[in-house]
């Protein structure tokens, strides 16, 4: 709000001239505003019982998905008769750090893609295999397996250059009130983290643990499934999983979580 007010107040002739000069100069876009300057992982808001499950790989049910992902990694699929390993070999080396910098700008597509979408690009364009449905068990297994290879590495997405407009759209989605309850994402995750909504302790809504094993669903869920839940809870019309709107929002969320360690696969209530 403060920023918007400042923008309106500055719409005089001088500001306009400065704006025009900026538009002509090919400099980098200004650093976006950070509402939360020292982000906290959702693990800081989880109960000790939930954390005990997350912190023990033998107890963490998400490792069933990780194992399925690892098997699929080495299993040929599609008309080209190739597996992921045919091109990327050992995932512990080739996929290290990948989760930490996704979503990422894809020059060939001219847009930002999520990790899920990149897996599907490889399947359809290189393997001759059908797309996996977003949030399907197979795709969540693959992203859990790939994500694990970055565990502990700091989130570090690149929002510069051609990626920036997609980031900006994600930021706008985040800050737009929606639904019958007329709330923005920050109504809960910026204004009220640490407070309770009935039985839920509100976290900062960070994305560094996804895909996550959700105890309530008894399965691994993708980030965009969780996002549909949050939009639904304010009685808003949720965008489709895999849509451009949610991809841009996921990009913005990754930047919000910048610096937090990847915790894939986390466990949440």
């Amino acid at each position: 709000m403060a920023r918007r007010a400042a923008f309106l107040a500055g719409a005089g002739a001088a500001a306009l001239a400065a704006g025009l000069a900026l538009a002509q100069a090919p400099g980098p876009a200004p650093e976006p505003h950070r509402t939360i300057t020292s982000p906290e992982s959702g693990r800081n808001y989880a109960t000790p019982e939930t954390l005990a499950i997350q912190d023990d790989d033998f107890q963490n049910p998400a490792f069933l998905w990780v194992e399925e992902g690892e098997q699929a990694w080495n299993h040929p699929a599609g008309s080209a008769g190739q597996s992921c390993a045919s091109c990327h070999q050992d995932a512990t080396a080739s996929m290290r750090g990948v989760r930490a910098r996704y979503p990422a700008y894809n020059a060939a597509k001219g847009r930002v893609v999520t990790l899920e979408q990149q897996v599907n690009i490889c399947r359809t364009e290189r393997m001759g295999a059908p797309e996996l449905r977003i949030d399907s068990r197979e795709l969540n297994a693959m992203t859990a397996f790939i994500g694990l290879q970055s565990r502990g590495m700091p989130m570090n997405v690149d929002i510069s250059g051609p990626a920036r407009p997609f980031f900006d759209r994600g930021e706008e989605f985040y800050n737009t009130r929606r639904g019958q309850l007329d709330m923005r994402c920050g109504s809960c995750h910026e204004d009220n983290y640490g407070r309770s909504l009935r039985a839920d302790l509100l976290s900062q809504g960070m994305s560094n643990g996804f895909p996550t094993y959700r105890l309530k669903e008894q399965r691994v869920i993708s980030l965009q499934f969780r996002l549909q839940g949050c939009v639904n809870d304010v009685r808003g019309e949720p965008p489709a999983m895999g849509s451009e709107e949610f991809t841009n929002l996921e990009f913005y969320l990754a930047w919000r979580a910048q610096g937090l360690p990847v915790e894939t696969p986390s466990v949440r209530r």
Partner: protein
Amino acid sequence: FTEAVAQTAAREPVRLVPFEVVDQAIPRPLTDTPGNAERGQRLALDRSKGNCVTCHELPLSADFQGNLGPPLTGVADRYEPGELRLRIVDTKRINPDSNMPSYYRVEGLNRVRRDWAGRPMLEAQEVEDILAYLLTLR
């Protein structure tokens, strides 16, 4: 069949009963039937209705009570009935940045879920019932 009904409802916004805001309050009741505090308490707990307890502590026993908003105990001592009525109907007229939903409003909302579009969160009588309950909170 129910779906068809819901869709028709979504296309034509429900017509709200007219009300007048005077000095940050709605002095006159929205209906002729006096509010019923017992029904109001049930509505304040009901997830598909007021669901006030999600954000507010209330002086009653419920498994979980939220604290996104202030506790409502004593609220009848702090406000006039008309002020409380406006806070339920459309609290954003008092504080445009509020995170509390407007319970009796259909205009000016963005991308409301299809099954709720064009309908207020509460019926006029339900607003009066919840108000009657709030007036017991001294």
